[in-house]
């Protein structure tokens, strides 16, 4: 359904404060990837809920999830394309949605927590 361009779960200390980080590319040539920009749509995980529960973005958009709860949560896609690790308090997970579609997801620790990302050209 979707070919993820990037998909990562990182602790805040690893993200830095919106500063570009240098990572190695697949062929070993250093490349510069921008961390989440201020305008990156964010889904807050608070009080055992994804807020907003539904979000609509354009293809190529990056979405950031941040866990504000004191218990671990995950962002787990129903089709397995979204697959964060267990996110402790303040942990973040981001994903770039390349293609149009409706991407439903849940928390694998608390399956009653659900959300959906709509990717639309307009």
């Amino acid at each position, binding site marked *: 359904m979707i070919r993820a361009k990037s998909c990562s779960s990182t602790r805040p200390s690893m993200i830095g404060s919106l500063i570009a980080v240098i990572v190695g590319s697949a062929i070993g040539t250093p490349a510069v990837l921008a961390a989440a920009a201020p305008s990156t749509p964010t889904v807050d995980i608070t009080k055992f809920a994804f807020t907003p529960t539904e979000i609509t973005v354009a293809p190529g958009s990056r979405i950031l999830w941040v866990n504000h709860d*004191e218990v671990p949560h995950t962002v787990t896609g129903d089709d397995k394309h979204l697959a964060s690790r267990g996110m402790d308090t303040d942990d973040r997970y981001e994903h770039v949605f390349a293609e149009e579609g409706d991407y439903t997801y849940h928390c694998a620790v608390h399956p*009653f927590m*659900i959300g959906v990302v709509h990717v639309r050209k307009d």
Partner: protein
Amino acid sequence: MSIDDTDKRDPEKLIDPDRRKALGCLSAWTGAAVVWTVVGGVPRALGTTHAGSLATASKNALTFVQISDTHIGFHKEANPDVVGSLRHAIADIHSLAQSPAFVVHTGDVSHLSKPEEFGQAKEILAELHVDRVHTVPGEHDAIDDGVNGYLKFFDHDGKGRSWYSFDQSGVHFIGLNNVLDFKKGTLAALGDEQLAWLKSDLARVSRSTPIVVLAHIPMWTVYAPWGWGTADSAAAMSLLRPFGSVTVLNGHIHQVLQKVEGHVALHTAMSLAYPLPTPGQAGIGEPGPLKVPAGELGKLLGTRQLSVVRGRQALALIDTPLDR
């Protein structure tokens, strides 16, 4: 105070003033463990290790201890010292007049399923002066890689699966995993494979054999919006219902609740990590750790709802009031 197995009075009347006071002391929730005994084939709760004066188990009775929800790795304000709480419980268990045959841990051994959390938990549990500790996984033990990480430390029968059974002193014990198999938006479940195993396991057990089931999430729906229930518990209950004495021990909700269905008595246990709100508690909104003022942690859960369940009693629920 002792609770006579032959006592036929109403369960409510079994709470004499001393016991009511003792139950009130259960507010010292942290570091507490529930002591169980089996007499005449009927498991009964004797009290908690914090109650001060536990009921005495009959001679030659099988006694074991239940602890739950240690959440090793949790370090936030609700309880920054879960290791201390566990060690407190261990010390209390060691001080019991009658040493338990073993300890059962009804899940959420770890907080984040990290190997170092499982490792630390296993090391600390090894300090128990008992032959063995039986665990079942909680959902906190199944993050990232299912129960594979958990099984590296707690594979009880070496079969690489998170459910098992064993027999002890004429009692058939069953450990289940009810935290993984789920459909999005619903409660977790046991799943068809495990239910099939349960059916085959019970097929070799006589109907008169007392059964004790260990599972993390309550095997009845305590509060569905918070995931406090097991989606296919009815299927499990239908397999267990024909047996004369079934006791189900759960954790997950960090408080003591009971329910009795015919010959099946279900009990949730207190946590050794942090308190949680009561089911659907007004003003809370979610099942997150409750923070209490310093000094209050040890006495927050003043409402311990321990029941004494005797076999073949249609219903035996005891609601214990708060004792502040």
